[in-house]
């Protein structure tokens, strides 16, 4: 793979991998570092990669491995996770946002953070990275059924949370 094509692929995937890292690590600086390290790994190992068609699968696998490695390392170092909501409250200072919408989004953020790692990785790859279920299954090395059920349980958790908090009205 030539360096122009590689740079193009990095450009296409940089934000997606960053979002994956951000959602899984819940910390902006860590996510930024992780993304850099992931792409450095990609670059270093590009010679061992041969099938361009599966580049996305390969890059996401490297990313998830690195993210889980960082998470383990960090939890060992700090023995605690940073406040998951710190980031959004810092950055979401849009004065035009309606209070109700803000409340709704904060609640969504909390419930997404509370998903199990397996549900969360599927959810993030589905929504933030816009990968089809088939691709997610390839990345995770799991069956399509497992991935779909992880997605279903994640969405059900979100739905129940929204219903419980009466943040959206469902018709009776």
């Amino acid at each position, binding site marked *: 793979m030539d*360096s122009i094509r*590689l*740079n193009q692929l*990095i*450009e296409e995937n*940089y*934000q997606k991998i*960053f*979002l994956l890292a*951000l959602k899984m690590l819940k910390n902006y600086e860590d996510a*930024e570092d992780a*993304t*850099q390290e992931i*792409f*450095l790994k990609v*670059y*270093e*190992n*590009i*010679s*061992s990669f041969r099938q361009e068609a599966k580049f996305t699968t390969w890059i996401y696998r490297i990313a998830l491995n690195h993210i889980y490695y960082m998470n383990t390392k960090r939890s060992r170092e700090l023995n605690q996770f940073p406040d998951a909501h710190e980031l*959004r409250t810092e*950055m*979401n200072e849009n004065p035009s946002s309606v209070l109700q919408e803000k409340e*709704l*989004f904060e609640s*969504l*953020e909390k419930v997404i953070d509370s998903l199990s790692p397996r549900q969360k990785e599927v959810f993030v790859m589905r*929504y*933030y990275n816009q990968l089809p*279920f088939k691709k997610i299954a390839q990345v995770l090395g799991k069956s399509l059924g497992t991935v*779909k059920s992880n997605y*279903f349980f994640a*969405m059900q958790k*979100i*739905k129940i949370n*929204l219903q419980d908090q009466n943040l*959206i009205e*469902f*018709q009776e």
Partner: protein
Amino acid sequence: MKCINKNIFLYYLNDEISSRKKKQIAAHLLECEHCRKHLAEWEKVLNITQNYIDQDVKIHPAPPHAHITQQFGKVPPKPDNLFWIRYWTKPALATVAVLFASLMIFFLSPRSVPTLQENYYVIDNVAYTETISLSDVYLNDLEIMYLQEIYENEELTDDILYGDWLYYEDVLDNLDQDELQELINKMYDNSVT
């Protein structure tokens, strides 16, 4: 009219079901208000989630990374021959380690009968009964040894060995520890020489 499993609506909205099933659901929805409500619920959840994601993605653009791609030009990529080293080093090392450990165990393990001290404890602990298979042979040797002591190196005929056997077993059982130790020491010396 039988309603559809409402969990399927999530996959229906994600376009993750077969076209045949999709047609069935569409036909059912035309007739069933109850299911239409469920579908609307999921539609609402998906819309809200998508809105949230869109906003979240918007406020988190990719961090600046031009310097990284520039840096890539300078870092030489790992040569391809490292592939085999990377994937085969660990299994190969593990195999060598296992083989080495097996050989070491084989060469370092004792070939002779268990050491005197060990045997002594075993004998002492079981009070010279014949139930411990490990010490059976040793115990028999001990008895022969004792007979030799008694018969002062006379040739031990079968008569002596088997005729007095039960009697000397009893004698041996009644030896105190010092006497037994002495006998064991002698026997050990003989076996060494």
